[in-house]
């Protein structure tokens, strides 16, 4: 087994401790422990896609590795070059995305061991589900599939709740229970309460908040239900409130939509510096406001998925519009992941909305995981154009 990822996680956690970001260090330490458990102690794990509720998996004595998070770590540290091209040569589904390609490589290069099972949803991305299915077929592994309805209604909540309950029952047969539902519910609600406090804080003090920190920590969504997630979030909130305002002055405020190139997350800092602007908000660090109850655990989890801002383009658009107003944003940048059918299809609508608001909009296209698909020169040119528009525009909001 290759221990590079383990070493990188350890080093990064220690680095964050040294700079006083204990919440970030704790988050990374958890992932380090998880990886150590599955690599060195051969503990079983389930590979899951992003929207499989963390609370559900937290009930069981099995590790949960979320594909996107581990692919993200590998991308950020550039563990594997040209993941897309390399994955194509080793039985990777043709329409899979680069996140899946990188996870596939982590498995084939034995950086992480083979999972005990895969759990996938067809929301937000059907390709992720297809990838998981193909892996399970190849390795003869169990495949837990949750079919998410395409519309929101009370009936659909019941249908999805049944699906989640079935998943829970199937996992019960395979793994011992580690935590009672009430403990998981308590931890999840506590984490959600802190998260809402944080989002309220950054709306009130956008100049004090570093958007990139929120982008780094949004995968905590997958850790809702774990006992130490509220503490990590509390640490983050404490750090925010204790940080002195950098005094950004009256510079234009920009919203960042979508994800960020993981191998180049300094991009946001660069944009703020070069464009004399402040990126005040991103949309990923929002886990919704559906609190869980022990009596309606599965329907509540279902409701959270079906009321996610990303569930429909309309809800996402309404949320972006609200954020433009709340933050007094004067520009929007959308990073569109290559071949992604989840967030980029809303771009024409966001562009139109930005035009109606008389604020500049920029779509940066690339791949969050594979630097080979990010044209830095074109991005620099488009950003420069965006800055020109940003400093010229007069929003009508």
């Amino acid at each position, binding site marked *: 087994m290759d221990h590079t990822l383990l070493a990188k996680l350890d080093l990064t956690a220690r680095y964050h401790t040294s700079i006083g970001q204990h919440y970030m260090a704790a988050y990374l330490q958890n992932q380090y422990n998880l990886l150590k458990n599955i690599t060195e102690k051969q503990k079983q794990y389930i590979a899951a896609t992003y929207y499989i509720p963390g609370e559900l998996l937290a009930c069981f004595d099995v590790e949960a590795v979320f594909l996107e998070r581990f692919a993200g770590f590998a991308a950020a540290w550039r563990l594997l070059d040209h993941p897309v091209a390399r994955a194509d040569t080793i039985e990777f589904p043709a329409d899979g995305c680069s996140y899946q390609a990188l996870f596939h490589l982590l498995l084939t290069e034995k950086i992480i061991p083979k999972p005990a099972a895969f759990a996938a949803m067809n929301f937000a991305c059907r390709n992720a589900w297809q990838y998981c299915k193909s892996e399970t077929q190849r390795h003869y592994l169990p495949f837990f599939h949750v079919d998410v309805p395409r519309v929101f209604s009370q009936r659909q909540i019941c249908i999805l709740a049944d699906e989640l309950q079935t998943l829970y029952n199937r996992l019960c047969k395979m793994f011992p229970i580690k935590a009672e539902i009430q403990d998981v519910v308590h931890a999840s609600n506590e984490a959600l309460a802190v998260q809402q406090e944080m989002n309220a804080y950054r709306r009130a003090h956008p100049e004090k908040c570093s958007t990139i920190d929120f982008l780094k920590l949004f995968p905590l969504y997958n850790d809702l239900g774990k006992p130490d997630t509220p503490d990590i979030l509390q640490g983050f909130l404490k750090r925010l409130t204790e940080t002195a305002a950098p005094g950004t002055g009256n510079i234009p405020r920009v919203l960042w939509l979508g994800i960020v190139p993981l191998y180049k997350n300094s991009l946001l800092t660069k944009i703020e510096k070069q464009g004399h602007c402040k990126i005040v908000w991103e949309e990923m660090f929002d886990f919704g406001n559906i609190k869980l109850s022990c009596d309606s655990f599965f329907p509540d989890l279902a409701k959270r998925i079906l009321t996610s801002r990303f569930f429909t383009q309309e809800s996402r658009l309404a949320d972006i519009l609200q954020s433009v107003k709340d933050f007094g944003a004067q520009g929007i940048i959308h990073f569109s992941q290559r071949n992604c059918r989840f967030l980029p299809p809303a*771009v*024409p609508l966001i*562009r139109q909305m930005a*035009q109606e608001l008389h604020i500049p909009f920029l779509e940066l296209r690339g791949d969050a995981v594979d630097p080979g698909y990010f044209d830095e020169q074109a991005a620099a040119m*488009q950003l420069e*154009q965006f800055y*020109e*528009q940003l400093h*010229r525009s007069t929003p009508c909001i």
Partner: protein
Amino acid sequence: MIMNLYLGIDIGSVSTDAALLDSQKKLRAYSIVKSGFDHQIAVKEVIGDICRKAGITPEQIRRTVATGYGRRNVSGAYKTVTEITCHAMGTHFLSPDVRTVIDIGGQDSKVIRINEYGYAETFYMNDKCAAGTGRFLEVMAQAMGIGIEVLGLAALTAKKAEPISSTCTVFAESEVISKIAEGKPREAIIAGIHQAIGERLRGMVSAVGMRPPLALTGGVAKNQCMQSVLKNLLQTDIFIPEEPQIVGALGAAIFAADSVS
């Protein structure tokens, strides 16, 4: 003696273009030279050429604004402005009613929506891909064994366009070679190549949302078949500047003049 003359220089991947305006914003002269490997040499050459045409010395130019991807290589420029802004302004100067500009450059293409003041409202740019650019036509012309300058005229003689399904330059080239081997008429294949670029550009136009009137700029705008294909695909008349290759430089010259006033 310094005169009220304003120079715009657009350093593109293929050509370096310059436009010279007087204080009344009347075009005094323009020049187009090859960019080559050394932008400093191209700048020197284009300034020398435009001054010769205008009958002035470089010292008589009051202010210079540079644009294009090599804009930072113009020493002595008062400022640099992005080519999207310059193309928008240059087009607006030539035809103030235009609201959408398609600029087909050597290495990239852009669709720019502009407002009533000539500023870019929104834009879409192809990146990391030669499809829908002058480079695509160049590669296809090579594959067909025909000069780039006569490619458009040859296509106009086609009775029908031979469909080229791939918009990727590499795949399209092999598709073209296959069609030649199949014995398809040369002009039909060339018409198909233009059609493929047109389809690609139509997609870009729909991404920003077309608002007529529309203008076509950049070197490829001189290609008559391209003009005709886009006109048919977009179902609208298209304004083609007399010299579409200098629109960016013209926009830069306008910014130079405006920076004084």
